[in-house]
């Protein structure tokens, strides 16, 4: 566990991604302090461009875009986290159960997973959200959480199957370890990077999907989030009247959190599969070699 953490932080991409994500977390936690204005109050004239008083301008309703963005960060992160947790827990339980028990259990679970994988997901989510009617962010988290576990389950199962044939698993089974111990103590730690990958990926997916659902007008307009900001901007035709800041602010917020999270995931991927690494390690090796050469030259000169 600690080994995984240190190699995670040593990976430059992962550390950079983590820094971005932590920045968002800080913004979400400190929202009341840094927002400056009430996000839903009319604080200025409509569609003011960015200025010293209103860093990111104002909306058509004369609301402060920066305040909305800061409060929206809270919603997006919470929804991403909750849905990500549900997706990961579901996927991991289903994947490991299928891999460990095999036989009929595996057949049934694997069949379920494959069926869910071939369904058109976004249209289905849209329809579910539409039938539930102006859903709150929590309902969105729940819908996404309960419908998006299939990919994670499939990957976890595949990795679990390869683990199952390892000698040490065979050995612990012969020692008569109970199933729960085999799963929790022997298998789970070795699936950590896949679970982590799945978790971060699900958060990205959730944040994007939530924003998309709300942008399309299927979320509750009373909730402050990046998606509803985009929806309001779109319905007040901000882009056509040239109020680009009202659209750009939530767009960039989504892009940067997405980039931050994917960098983290890229790092996880590189740790579990070192061959995928780009310059980082190779560059480090070259640098080390150069330093060694220089040191030797110095020695030779003396």
């Amino acid at each position, binding site marked *: 566990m600690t080994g995984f953490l240190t190699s995670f932080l040593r990976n430059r991409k992962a550390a950079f991604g983590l820094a971005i994500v932590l920045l968002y977390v800080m913004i979400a936690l400190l929202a009341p302090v840094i927002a400056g204005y009430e996000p839903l109050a009319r604080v200025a004239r409509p569609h003011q461009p960015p200025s010293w008083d209103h860093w990111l301008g104002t909306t058509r309703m004369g609301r402060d875009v920066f305040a909305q963005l800061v409060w929206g960060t809270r919603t997006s992160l919470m929804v991403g986290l909750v849905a990500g947790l549900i997706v990961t827990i579901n996927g991991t339980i289903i994947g490991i159960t299928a891999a460990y028990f095999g036989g009929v259990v595996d057949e049934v679970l694997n069949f379920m997973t494959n*069926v869910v994988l071939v369904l058109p997901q976004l*249209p289905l989510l849209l329809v579910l959200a539409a*039938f539930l009617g102006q859903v709150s962010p929590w309902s969105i988290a729940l819908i996404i959480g309960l419908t998006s576990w299939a990919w994670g389950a499939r990957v976890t199962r595949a990795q679990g199957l390869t683990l199952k044939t390892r000698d040490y698993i065979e050995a612990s089974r012969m020692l008569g370890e109970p199933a729960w111990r085999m799963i929790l103590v022997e298998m789970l730690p070795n699936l950590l990077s896949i679970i982590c990958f799945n978790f971060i990926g699900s958060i990205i997916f959730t944040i994007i999907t939530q924003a998309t659902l709300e942008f399309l*007008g299927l979320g509750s307009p009373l909730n402050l989030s990046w998606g509803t900001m985009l929806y309001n901007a779109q319905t007040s035709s901000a882009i056509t009247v040239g109020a680009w800041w009202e659209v750009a602010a939530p767009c960039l917020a989504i*892009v940067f959190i997405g*980039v931050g999270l994917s960098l983290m995931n890229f790092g996880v991927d590189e740790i579990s599969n070192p061959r995928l690494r780009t310059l980082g390690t190779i560059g480090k090796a070259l640098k080390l070699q150069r330093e060694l050469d220089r040191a030797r030259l110095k020695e030779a000169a003396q």
Partner: protein
Amino acid sequence: MNFLLKRLAFYLVAFVVAATFNFMIPRMMPGDPTDIMLSHADGTIPPEAREALKATFGFIDEPLHIQYGNYLASIFTWDFGTSIKFYPLPVTDVLLMALPWTLLLTGSALAISFSVGTLLGILAAWRRGQGVDMVLSPLALAMQSIPAMVVALTTLYIFAIGNQILPTGYAYDPSLDRGFTVDFIASVATHAILPVLTLSLVFTGGYLVTMRNNMIGQLGEDHVHMAEAKGLSDARVRYAYAARNALLPSVTALALSFGALFGGSLVTEVVFNYPGVGNLLYLGILARDFPLIQGQLLIMTLAMLTANFTVDIAYIFLDPRLRKA
């Protein structure tokens, strides 16, 4: 052959499961769906048609299993009832009008993003850790996590509003007559540029990363070293030995993205007001047009399953191991 039959059986069962979900969703939702549905039609539907609609849609007081039977039958007769939003057109007609536009968009975008992404992925893997890879891989990664609506709004703002060089929406200039005239085809092409560009940008990153990672795996394999040792040219080793095997997962991704493309093209079509099936589903959802939504979901599922089955067939050609089994 055995393999294909097994897959076919799986898709049949998957389709029945999807169809059942599709049947259950509106019936499980709170409130009476017919009332919600017809309240959105604001009096454009005469009372006798209301009753008929209720009947065709199956919302009469029949036991659930009979409704289900009728519903399953409607799939095979390809009769999804009458659309409410586009009353009195049948759902099938409405869908058939929109389908060619989506096929145009998604077809072009898939072709572009798959070929560009795969070629760049091969390049990035071949020059792993060098300049090209250092730029391409993080860029692809970043593009992958940017939602379609952000790309769509950006291209819309840059090319259609900031600089008015391309149209803001719709599939062609409505003042032109539809037909095989130069003007009309040119109009269709210029209207397709921005949505196709958006979709291609959204999907290229995924193909690039998939191809790069698989290609790197392949480059470490013995048969590739063997090819190098034989003194074959770089290009031959790259394309005929490594890329050919690395392509398999990309082909899977291609099929799976068909479903994502329907979803992704939905947002893009909405932003550009493009008259494809995605936009249609959106309009149907806004109008709570249940027959249209149900018909559409079924067709999307069918498209998804067909794409997957096509991949299975392609695999038989691409992977010799499956031919023996």
